[in-house]
């Protein structure tokens, strides 16, 4: 293991604290503060993986994860970006997408076959003969993909989430971001600062160049960081990558937990009044042959390897750069012991003279107007050929490190995904912010700035502008700072070079997809003339690193190749997440929210098998026998209890309550009488039944009504929607959860109830369709209704939810002699089906209207002044012969019931079975079906087509409804 440079103030490692990890089955050691990649590098690893298509060796290139070069399998998790994932004790690290090893990949012959694979070649091959494709596809699938995930992989760790509100949110904790934070925080606002690295400082943090008056940039960064940390109103999130910005200033990101945090990662969602983007720059890759060979690195990568992780990135280096940062890095790295053979600078002039002097002082030769043309070395860099820009002169130098960078490129994704626009700037050669989204400001290097003072001042300015959006600060102050910014050095001239003077067969514009300059030319020749189309055709920028590597170069190259003017150069689209984000992180805590009734626990104890029904969980069965024979027979013969608490329950009151009911219910609600219940239905404007339930009059313009379980959540909204123009004065109170409902049903129901209540429950005193209010034991107020949904003597008791368990227990006690039992939703389903009482959604679908299901009798057509919802459509459709009708049927020859959902057919589909069961009560199979009108006559034979029936049909006959107790004696007894 390499000895680290451990005297540098910029180091983020602690060489005294070793960390062990496993790599390819062997134990290795890194130090605290290492990333996985820096630890591997220290152990001599240079080839981290192999590329997708050509299996080319790949190594450390940038340190910010713009490409998949250092993606590895870590603890079973694929595609972990090792270059910015902190090393942890005991990590198990493996290479991915290799046959053999990254060092010796048996698939590396693919690199020679690139001539067979021009851009989009796969569209032209492997489909003839047709049989070839499925075989070829299998191989393609195997070859594609990078990491592996096992189907039974269980993601360890705790994932959390927070939702924050703030005045100003600042993305980027470099000098500009920190200045922005400080200036807006000074106004007393709430400020959030997000920084993707574990520490603040950004562009200053790892540099030892002078800031001012002998202070290094690094020290300045630390100063600012201390000021930021000291402000109570700045909420600081380090190690928190911003992954999304949305117009209207929503910002999302994820934070990587420290040892002391309770989470491994947490999703962070921030609603800000204004946003400052100070995300800095990445480097623009230099395009030359073998520009991604291990040993080729970007400037900041080489420099930060030394300054942050204490490792020289190589022994002998050649620089090919186009930016002063490259000169500065050469000087610093030289002073740390790196041999620098030569610095080739794309620029003919414009270099900082002070830096030039320092290079000269160190005898580092500089070649102006030169660029790397080709890296040599089969697996890692051994030599590099430099070329003059015009390609006329070349020189080949031995080296093991090529520091290559065409320049910088602002990180603008945060701006564009929020609908801001960019403009190509000829001076810097960069895409710079043009139209910013509302209340979003750019600062620092995003603006193309390079001068330390200018970067800071632009941060201050952005912070002040953001503060002004929150109503703090003065325009004078903003003007003052703006003047200062204007007086400081503006953006530095940038290199416009796109590629070295090479043909580009092995010049990779996109590492992740193995796309070369040659591929781009091929796409252009085929008529794909805009970058977005080229992206699709060549997959450039669609790999794990997205546009990080090719995003800037692609449009530049396309424009150059087509000799388009600068104004037509458009950036490619950037899409969230701006940093690849784990699904477990996005999922966060993922609390499941269901409703339970007051009877939940008791029913589970009684063996209830629960199902989700809408927002509720309900007991559907009370035994493993899903035909529910016992439950059903007990209701028919004795008495059963069903928890119907999920029914929607509402009070409507106020001067216009009746008007509102008239609008939404199809019946004439003025005919609802006190002490009686009225069954009615609500339709949508198309006359389709949305809901049914009962209405009780409590007083003048004061009603209590029920809705189906699924509609309860929307009923208030529905009624208000359909009366929104009327200005009526009525009030709705949702009592759904307030009242539990016990459905006490069966011939012995009265005998049970009379033991519990004090009122007279005889048929004369409390007959069918009646409504009564009373108290149990002088304490529990109950609303009781005589209904007959299941077709037996039946009481629906509405009981305050907190008393539900008590009443339930009383009834259970009282019912013991009559063998009272629970019954569940499925038993109820069968019981009511035998009675041909419909359940909406089961005997109806979205397009079924009131008349289709035989509920036309509910419709009062004389109240047109009420503008009842659905009435117009019902009138217009009532004579349409093409509509489906609900019918009852029995199976022929005592056959079994068809399955729910079976079709009614002849040569066409003519309808379908809604619900059908082998009825225990009737001893035959019965059901209801929606069929075309001409099949709805009694006696019609129905041909039934079930799934998997082949040519075997079963037959039923349309019969009169209901099947069970047609006179309705039992429910009225």
């Amino acid at each position, binding site marked *: 293991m390499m000895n680290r440079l451990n005297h540098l103030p910029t180091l983020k490692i602690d060489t005294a604290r070793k960390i062990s990890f496993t790599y390819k089955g062997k134990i290795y050691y890194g130090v605290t503060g290492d990333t996985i990649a820096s630890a591997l590098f220290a152990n001599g690893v240079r080839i981290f993986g192999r590329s997708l298509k050509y299996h080319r060796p790949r190594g450390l290139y940038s340190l910010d994860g713009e490409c998949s070069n250092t993606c590895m399998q870590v603890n079973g998790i694929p595609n972990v970006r090792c270059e910015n994932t902190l090393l942890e004790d005991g990590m198990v690290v493996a290479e991915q997408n290799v046959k053999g090893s990254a060092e010796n990949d048996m698939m590396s012959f693919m690199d020679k076959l690139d001539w067979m694979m021009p851009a989009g070649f796969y569209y032209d091959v492997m489909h003839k003969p047709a049989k070839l494709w499925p075989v070829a596809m299998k191989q393609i699938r195997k070859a594609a993909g990078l990491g592996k995930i096992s189907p039974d992989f269980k993601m360890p760790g705790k994932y959390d989430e927070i939702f924050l509100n703030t005045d100003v949110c600042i993305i980027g904790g470099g000098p500009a971001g920190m200045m922005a934070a400080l200036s807006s925080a000074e106004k007393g606002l709430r400020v959030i600062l997000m920084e993707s690295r574990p520490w603040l400082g950004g562009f200053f943090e790892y540099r030892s160049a002078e800031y001012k008056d002998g202070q290094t940039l690094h020290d300045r960064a630390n100063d600012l960081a201390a000021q930021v940390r000291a402000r109570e109103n700045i909420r600081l999130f380090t190690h928190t990558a911003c992954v999304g910005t949305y117009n209207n200033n929503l910002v999302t990101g994820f934070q990587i937990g420290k040892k002391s945090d309770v989470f491994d990662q947490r999703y962070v969602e921030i*609603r800000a009044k204004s946003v400052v983007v100070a995300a800095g720059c990445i480097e623009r890759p230099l395009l030359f042959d073998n520009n991604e060979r291990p040993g080729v690195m970007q400037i900041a990568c080489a420099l930060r390897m030394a300054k942050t992780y204490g490792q020289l990135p190589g022994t002998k280096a050649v620089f090919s750069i186009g930016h002063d940062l490259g000169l500065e890095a050469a000087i610093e790295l030289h002073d740390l012991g790196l041999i620098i053979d030569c610095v080739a600078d794309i620029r003919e002039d414009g270099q900082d003279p002070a830096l030039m002097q320092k290079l000269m002082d160190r005898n580092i030769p500089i070649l102006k107007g030169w660029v790397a043309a080709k890296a040599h070395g089969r697996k890692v860099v051994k030599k590099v050929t430099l070329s003059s820009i015009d390609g006329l002169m070349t020189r080949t130098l031995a080296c093991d490190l090529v520091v290559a960078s065409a320049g910088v490129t602002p990180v603008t994704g945060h701006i564009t995904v929020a609908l801001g626009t960019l403009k190509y700037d000829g001076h810097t050669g960069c895409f710079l912010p043009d139209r910013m989204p509302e209340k979003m400001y750019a600062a620092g290097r995003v603006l193309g700035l390079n001068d330390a003072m200018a970067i800071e001042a632009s941060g201050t300015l952005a912070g002040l502008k953001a503060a002004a959006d929150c109503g703090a600060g003065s325009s004078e102050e903003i003007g003052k700072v703006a003047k200062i910014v204007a007086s400081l050095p503006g953006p530095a001239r940038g290199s416009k070079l796109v590629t070295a003077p090479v043909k580009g067969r092995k010049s990779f514009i996109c590492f992740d997809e193995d796309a070369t300059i040659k591929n781009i030319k091929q796409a252009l020749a085929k008529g794909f003339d805009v970058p977005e189309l080229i992206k699709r055709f060549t997959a450039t920028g669609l790999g794990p690193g997205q546009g990080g590597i090719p995003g800037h170069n692609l449009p530049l190259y396309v424009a150059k190749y087509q000799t388009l003017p600068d104004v037509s150069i458009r950036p490619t689209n950037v899409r969230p997440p701006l940093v690849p984000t784990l699904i477990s992180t996005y999922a966060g805590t993922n609390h499941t929210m269901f409703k339970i009734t007051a009877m939940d626990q008791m029913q589970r104890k009684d063996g209830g098998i629960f199902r989700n029904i809408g927002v509720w969980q309900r007991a559907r069965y009370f035994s493993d026998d899903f035909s529910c024979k016992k439950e059903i027979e007990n209701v028919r013969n004795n008495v059963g209890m069903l928890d119907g608490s999920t029914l929607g329950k509402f009070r409507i009151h106020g001067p216009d309550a009746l008007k509102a009911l008239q609008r939404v219910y199809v019946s004439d609600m003025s005919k609802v009488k006190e002490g009686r219940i009225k069954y009615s239905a609500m339709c949508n404007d198309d006359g389709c039944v949305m809901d049914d339930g009962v209405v009780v009059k409590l007083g003048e313009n004061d009603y209590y009504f029920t809705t189906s379980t699924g509609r309860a959540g929307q009923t208030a909204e529905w009624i208000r929607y359909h009366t929104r123009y009327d200005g009526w004065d009525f009030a709705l109170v949702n009592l759904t959860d307030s009242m539990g409902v016990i459905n006490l049903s069966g011939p012995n129901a009265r005998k049970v109830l009379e033991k519990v209540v004090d009122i007279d429950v005889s048929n004369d005193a409390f007959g069918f369709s009646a409504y009564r209010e009373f108290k149990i034991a002088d304490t529990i107020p109950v609303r009781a209704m005589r209904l007959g949904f299941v077709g037996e003597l039946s009481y629906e008791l509405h009981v305050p939810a907190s008393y539900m368990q008590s009443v339930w227990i009383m009834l259970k006690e009282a019912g013991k002699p009559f063998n009272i039992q629970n019954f569940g939703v499925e038993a109820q389903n069968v019981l009511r089906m035998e009675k041909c009482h419909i359940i909406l959604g089961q005997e109806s679908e979205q397009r079924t209207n009131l008349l289709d299901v035989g509920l036309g009798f509910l419709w009062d057509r004389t109240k*047109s002044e009420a503008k009842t919802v659905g009435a117009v459509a019902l009138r217009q459709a009532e004579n349409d012969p093409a509509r489906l009708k609900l019918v009852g049927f029995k199976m022929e020859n005592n056959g079994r019931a068809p399955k729910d959902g079976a079709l009614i057919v002849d040569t066409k589909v003519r309808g379908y079975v809604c619900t059908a069961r082998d009825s225990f009560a009737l001893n035959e199979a019965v059901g209801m079906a929606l069929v075309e009108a001409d099949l709805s006559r009694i006696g019609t034979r129905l041909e039934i087509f079930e799934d998997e029936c082949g040519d075997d049909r079963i037959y039923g006959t349309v019969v009169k409804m209901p099947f069970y107790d047609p006179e309705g004696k039992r429910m009225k007894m």
Partner: protein
Amino acid sequence: MALTITCPICGKRNGYEFRFGGEEKGPRPEEEGLTPEAWCDYVHLNKCVAGVQEEWWCHKDGCGSWFKIHRDTTTNLEKEIKTVIEEAGK
């Protein structure tokens, strides 16, 4: 995109707290003499404006009120066009 809707009762909130209630089409038409065409126009047909439209929203996870706003369908941003906010039922 991060829709926010300004509820006249609760103020500016996350758009997911609301339910969209359709383009503004005016009060319910009278039943008498309503042709199938006119009925369909009121119930089903939309202008599908790419730009600012007036529309209904319900603050379903909040106060429950129905109200109208103007919103640009090409940006999802609300537009402050001052109109008398007609509130329903409340």
